[in-house]
């Protein structure tokens, strides 16, 4: 009996020892790479935003000027999402929203879009999707310029917010209409969200008054 207890204890201590060393190595690596990782992620996001909004159209620190938005049907989000407010001389000129298109061919499509203060889209980009490679993936700017068709489009007539096949204004490519349909719908819903929450999304002063 005593022997079993002893060998169990020894084994446990051994395992704990290895776990402790492993944890120490991980903690050190985390500590050393933490700032670089944060900077890389921020740079990547800023690069994405610069595709949506001309960088000279705003002059604030857009990464710090953020709003946290509650999950919303119109945004397609199930979790809190982050919005970035672009300002020029303190006045809001545009807002960048995270949007999920729920009706993709294979699952949700993550998008970001920028809406100008005049209610028109400044740009739309797909961040991640699982659409069929070579068919539905032309929504990705890396594959085609299709997504640029949204630039400058305002809400206008609701009937226009469809793909051409359904009587709307947006082109599609043969063989893949479900994917663009999802993007058009999600963008349309985002514009409706913008109209409903305009004052909240374009707060007059940074951080908002109490």
């Amino acid at each position, binding site marked *: 009996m005593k022997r079993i207890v002893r060998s169990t204890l*020894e*084994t446990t201590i*051994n*395992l704990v020892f*290895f*776990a402790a060393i*492993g944890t120490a*190595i*991980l903690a050190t*690596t*985390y500590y050393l*790479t933490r700032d*670089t*990782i944060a900077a*890389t*992620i921020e740079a*990547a996001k800023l690069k994405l935003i610069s595709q949506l909004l001309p960088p000279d159209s705003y002059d604030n620190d857009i990464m710090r000027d953020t709003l946290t938005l509650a999950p919303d049907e119109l945004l397609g989000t199930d979790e809190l999402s982050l919005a970035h407010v672009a300002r020029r001389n303190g006045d809001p000129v545009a807002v960048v929203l995270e949007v999920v298109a729920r009706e993709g061919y294979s699952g949700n499509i993550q998008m970001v879009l920028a809406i100008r203060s005049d209610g028109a889209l400044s740009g739309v980009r797909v961040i991640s999707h699982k659409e*069929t*490679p*070579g*068919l539905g993936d032309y929504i990705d700017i890396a594959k085609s310029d299709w997504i640029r068709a949204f630039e400058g489009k305002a809400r206008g007539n609701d009937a226009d917010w469809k793909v051409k096949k359904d009587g709307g204004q947006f082109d599609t490519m043969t063989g893949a209409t479900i994917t663009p349909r999802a993007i058009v719908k999600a963008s349309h819903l985002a514009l409706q969200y913008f109209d409903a929450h305009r004052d909240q999304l374009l707060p007059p002063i940074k951080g908002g008054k109490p």
Partner: protein
Amino acid sequence: MNWSEFKAIAYNGLWKQNPGLVQLLGLCPLLAVSNSLVNALSLGLATTLVVTLSNATIAPVRSYVPNEIRIPVFVLIIAVLVTVVQYLMNAYLYDLYLVLGIFVPLIVTNCIVLARAESFASKNPALPSAVDGLMMGLGLTAVLATLGGMREIIGKGTLLSGINLVFGESAKAWVIHVIPDYHGFLLAILPPGAFIGLGLIIASKNWLNLRAERKARNQPAPAALPEAARG
């Protein structure tokens, strides 16, 4: 470690016991990520790094690990190494990290890593173990790269697309359009293309082996290859 031992380990890893063609270990990333040469090569090299490091770490500590808990300890060491590689990729190769996504952390569960720890590093000194890890990794990388290249040429008509994820925007010019104005062959990019491609590669390897055997039978036998360091 002498030269013949080195040669035997290298021959085992790269050809005879090739993890992608013979042991058929670690097929999940092999099939999922090999849709382009750059993706395949990157994941192959990340795996190579992990196998080499894990073998080199496990071999010197092997005598301190009680037999009953050797698997948990090996898994622990492998998981730590993979997470370190993941942090480094996240920090310095962010775009590539996004493309490879879940398959980087999944290297932990790639059985080739644990298999080499268990069957080689737990019985051999550090240096041969590291060489074994390196050779096994390179063997897997070679298969991945061949499969990735095949699928990319047939599926998209290009080679090296996505190289800009590794070397920055300026590398976009390196992309080779093997077949100009190609409309793509979807099957090669989708998972079935990976199975068919891998099957063809395995068949060619077996064919080469058979041919070599036949040749050897017709000629006076050369010196037998050393069987030491078998995995």
